[in-house]
């Protein structure tokens, strides 16, 4: 059974630590590598692909160091994040080139099968330079899967894809995973991994901050203190009404508190507050003007995970 293992792997560039002491073991199925931009996801994928040597620790594929020799690429592939592809080639030429460099006996047939897989038959004879971002992603996936490798690493594969293409690609990856392949997908959007990744690794600032099933990670991210900015026709009365709710842990008045300035509400459970707030406002005869979460950026969610 093919498996990827990182043993206290670190990678630094001069004084900049990109990946810091990461250990994990991945087996068949889909693993999501989640984290904000600059978290070290691409560096981890490049180390797994043998394109980067770890500065410390080990990265093993089936017990062998990833960066040994080029024969590993018969079993392993990487779809890089950058849109770059040979723009002067047609989609079919690009995938067929990959098949030939993999020494497949019938490169033409293998390329046709891979292009069918990503549903690009209609555009296969167009130059890649004329492709949209989503089409480029799909042709890159076709070229990477043409030799049916055991390990598939994908760096932000859904970038630029429309919802239909995204769903189709998720289906393709699920089928590949069902065949026993090891698939690692990096993403900075948790929802992208919904119903896709059996296992999610959360990376923040080069470190592995959390790992587990998608639903467990989702729960970690939602069941945390949230802060909302609320503007209403009577902020002072609304604040008093909200304080009666057990889920509200604090309310601060902004401005003079007579309406217009708004209130900042901290809650331990977002869902309870969002149910209670409209009811409380209606009972008190207060008109709600604006409700805005102030800490919903991905960075703030990840910061919370780090602080846990």
């Amino acid at each position: 059974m093919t498996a990827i293992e990182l043993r206290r792997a670190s990678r630094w560039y001069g004084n900049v630590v990109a990946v810091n002491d990461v250990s994990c073991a991945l087996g068949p199925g889909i693993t999501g590598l989640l984290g904000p931009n600059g978290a070290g996801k691409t560096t981890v994928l490049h180390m797994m692909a043998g394109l980067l040597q770890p500065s410390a620790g080990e990265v093993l594929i089936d017990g062998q160091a990833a960066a040994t020799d080029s024969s590993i690429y018969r079993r392993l592939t990487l779809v890089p994040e950058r849109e770059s592809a040979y723009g002067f080639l047609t989609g079919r030429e690009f995938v067929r080139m990959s098949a030939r460099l993999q020494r497949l006996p019938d490169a033409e047939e293998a390329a046709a099968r891979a292009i069918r897989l990503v549903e690009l038959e209609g555009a296969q004879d167009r130059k890649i330079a004329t492709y949209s971002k989503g089409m480029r992603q799909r042709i890159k996936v076709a070229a990477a899967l043409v030799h049916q490798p055991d390990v598939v690493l994908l760096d932000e594969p859904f970038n630029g894809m429309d919802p239909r293409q995204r769903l189709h690609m998720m289906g393709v990856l699920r089928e590949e995973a069902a065949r026993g392949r090891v698939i690692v997908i990096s993403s900075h959007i948790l929802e992208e991994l919904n119903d896709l990744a059996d296992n999610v690794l959360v990376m923040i600032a080069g470190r592995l901050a959390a790992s587990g099933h998608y639903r467990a990670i989702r729960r970690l991210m939602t069941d945390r203190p949230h802060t909302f900015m609320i503007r209403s026709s009577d902020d002072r009365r609304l604040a008093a009404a909200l304080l009666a709710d057990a889920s509200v842990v604090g309310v601060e008045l902004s401005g003079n508190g007579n309406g217009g300035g708004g209130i900042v509400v901290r809650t331990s459970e977002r869902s309870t507050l969002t149910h209670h707030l409209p009811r409380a406002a209606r009972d008190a005869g207060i008109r709600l003007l604006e409700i805005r979460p102030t800490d919903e950026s991905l960075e703030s969610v990840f910061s919370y995970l780090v602080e846990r």
Partner: protein
Amino acid sequence: MSVGVDRTLIWLSARQLFAKRRALIALGLSLIPMVVALVFRMLVSDARGSGGDFLIGLARDLVIGALLPLTAVLFGTTAFGGDIEDGTLLYLLLKPVARWRVVLWKYVVAVVCTAAVMVPATLLPWLVVRGPDLPIQVPLSLLAGLAVGSALYCAGFLALGAWTRRALVVGLLYVVTIEMVLSRNLTGVKAISAREFALAISQKLLGNSAALVDKPVTTATVWTMGTLMLVVGVGLTIWKVRAYEAAERL
């Protein structure tokens, strides 16, 4: 090693070299000497009679002196520079193909493409001005020198493309300063000039039939220094590509 892999690397390298208007630029460079020859023939009454001196001067100053290094810069720096700049090198590194093999084929294709551009650049003006004093041996001797020059220039520019992201600018600076100015005036620089080596090979083959260069560098210098330049250029490129690590920019 599969022949199919080698053929694919050659095919990809050639397609890459002639992409992005480089085919048009190469075509333009290859036709310049013919245009000059046509103008010469229209303006000079005894063009056939003085064709020998004209063709030798054209080969020395324009074809070997300028077009050869410019074409080699164009193709040599693109062979790897293009892949690194566009981020497409990853598609080659992620294949079960030895990196030195990728370098070798890219180099060979760059040399062949450079030499191929020199063929019409030499033969077409010869066809325009040829007379009894210009047998086919003259352009063939020039082409032999140009082939050696292509191999040496491309080795250097290939390494430049692998080592710096400003390979085209650095390459052009080298051509203008070293090859076009210093090697023509400083004797010591001649011993490391691919232009002088190309001239020496052509002169050796021409014999006494034409005077391409007054004091050509010796054949021994051409072979020793030429081999050294070739090995260092290709070797540095292989070293760089074998040690290549995918940074974020890839």
